[in-house]
């Protein structure tokens, strides 16, 4: 009955040791390498606009700490990312659009690429009324450029 398994005790222990060492190595390597990739929680926090009326009408206002432009007209309000889709520089507002200081990509007022190396149009963010009645911008949710939050 003992001869049913051709593997001897010594070779079994040897193989088990190699297997265990490999397993340890793999697990250790994975856990080690995992350290280089932190979870990115809360990177895209909602932005609360206390009083939308403080933004001038028919104007793109730059929100410095959030790197986005808020546009307000008589009907409502919308928000567009001020980060160039090319290499992440902060866009400057020109008369009829946006321009990137780093590599000269140009976007129109709707955030569409006009010239330069930018691969995508600018992202427009969802604006809505939060549960507490305040108006919030949600950078985690993109919308069409003509979608406005009607406030007035």
């Amino acid at each position, binding site marked *: 009955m003992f001869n049913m398994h051709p593997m001897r005790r010594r070779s079994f222990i040897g193989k088990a040791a190699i297997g265990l060492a490999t397993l340890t190595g793999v697990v250790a390597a994975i856990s080690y390498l995992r350290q280089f990739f932190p979870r*990115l929680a809360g990177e895209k926090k909602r932005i609360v606009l206390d009083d939308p009326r403080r933004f001038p009408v028919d104007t793109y206002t730059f929100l410095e700490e959030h*790197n986005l432009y808020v546009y307000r007209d008589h009907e409502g309000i919308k928000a567009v990312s001020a980060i160039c889709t090319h290499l992440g520089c*902060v866009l400057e507002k020109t008369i009829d659009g946006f*321009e990137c200081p780093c590599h000269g990509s140009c976007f129109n007022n709707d955030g569409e690429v006009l010239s330069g*190396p930018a691969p*995508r149009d600018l992202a427009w963010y969802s604006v809505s009324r939060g549960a507490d009645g305040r108006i919030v911008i949600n950078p985690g949710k993109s919308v069409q450029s003509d979608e406005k939050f009607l406030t007035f």
Partner: protein
Amino acid sequence: MESNDLPSGIIKRNFFLHIHANRVHVHSMKPTYTFGLGIILGFLFLIMIFTGVILMIYYTPSVDMAYQSVKDIVNVVPGGRIIRNMHRWASQGMVIVVFLHLLRVFYTGSYLGKRSLNWVIGVVLLIITLLSNFSGYLLPWDQLAYWAVTIGSNIAASARELTDLLGITNAFDPGGFLKKLLIGGESVGQAALSRFFTLHVIFLPLSMLILLGIHFWRIRKDGGLSRPLKYANDKGSTNKWYAWPVLMWTELGLFVLVVLVVLFVALLADAPLLEQANPSFAENPAKSPWYFLGIQELVSYSAFAGGLLIPVLYLVFLFSIPYRDREDGYVGEWFSGKRGLKVVWRSAVFAFLLVVMQLFVIIRFGWLRDWIPGISQWFVMLINPATITGGIFILLAEVIRRKSKSTRLGALALFTSTFVALLIFTALGIWFRGPNWEFFWSLKQWPVI
């Protein structure tokens, strides 16, 4: 192997003779053969380590304190300004000399024969030199640092340009993976600073030290510096000089000279330090360190093609040279003789004309997107001066290789043309690009912003 026929006691007691053989070939001592570039790099590396350790004592790698601590180094620490200047200028010196060293080794065919492994190690050392420089660039946490690294990290993410076009970014995002590995988040912040600091003071210098050891050791294993075939059979003491003390004094003199030059430049010119980093206001123009401005010029056509595709192809080319070209007869001869020299200068002129012509078009008339608004990103990415130049060079080198039936001539053509193109793109980025990356003939024409 070069001969080791000194009494063994001298070798055992002498560290210097552990690096060099007892006798070195007279050809290796010719200043116009090596220009001492490799050993100068070694000396510059020593200066980097020496000054870097002092800087590390006073520097604080934290977003809140980094900038102030660098200001303290410049203004408060006794002699700190000189140490920082030396560190900065020696690092720039390393970049220049490492490329000159690459040119020297390539054009003298010193990668041929059994030296192929050492060439590969050399290219890795070149990459580490550039990475060390780039990681050090972020540490002062000023405007220049912040925006250069923001751009750099997004170049790492530029594979997204391709995956976006294929519509698979959500499932497969190597660009985002690389960016996260580099800066530990979506944008440059404390995580990025910590990572760059660790890379800069531990990982990269240590890797460089180890590889430098192997690099030097391989020279001895490969029989000393490369030399022409006519000397190949010099054995024993034929045509050899004693390394000790002739070579030692030469190298010591060179060391003093290198330190002197770095010290002199450090006394004359201050390393730049701009305002503290401001994440909501980009410098205009936001330029990388000068040696990356060639890539930044390419990136201004397409992030993926210019920042990833072409540079990776270039590195693949550099690594592959000794494995595609095995014409060992050309070893140790500048430009492989008259035929090679002709290929070199013809490729240089051709590359110059080809690149300048395209730059004329793109600067004067714009490119695809200016001509056909709304053109697909595929065309923007795949048809631009970066990809056209690269494609034509590869084609040209292949034609030369087939016609001449010489891999060495093909390698000479591709190496020369790509290097000339790199020089032109870099010069354009340094001197002729201004605010919004527009073309200006001189700095004086820049608009006041």
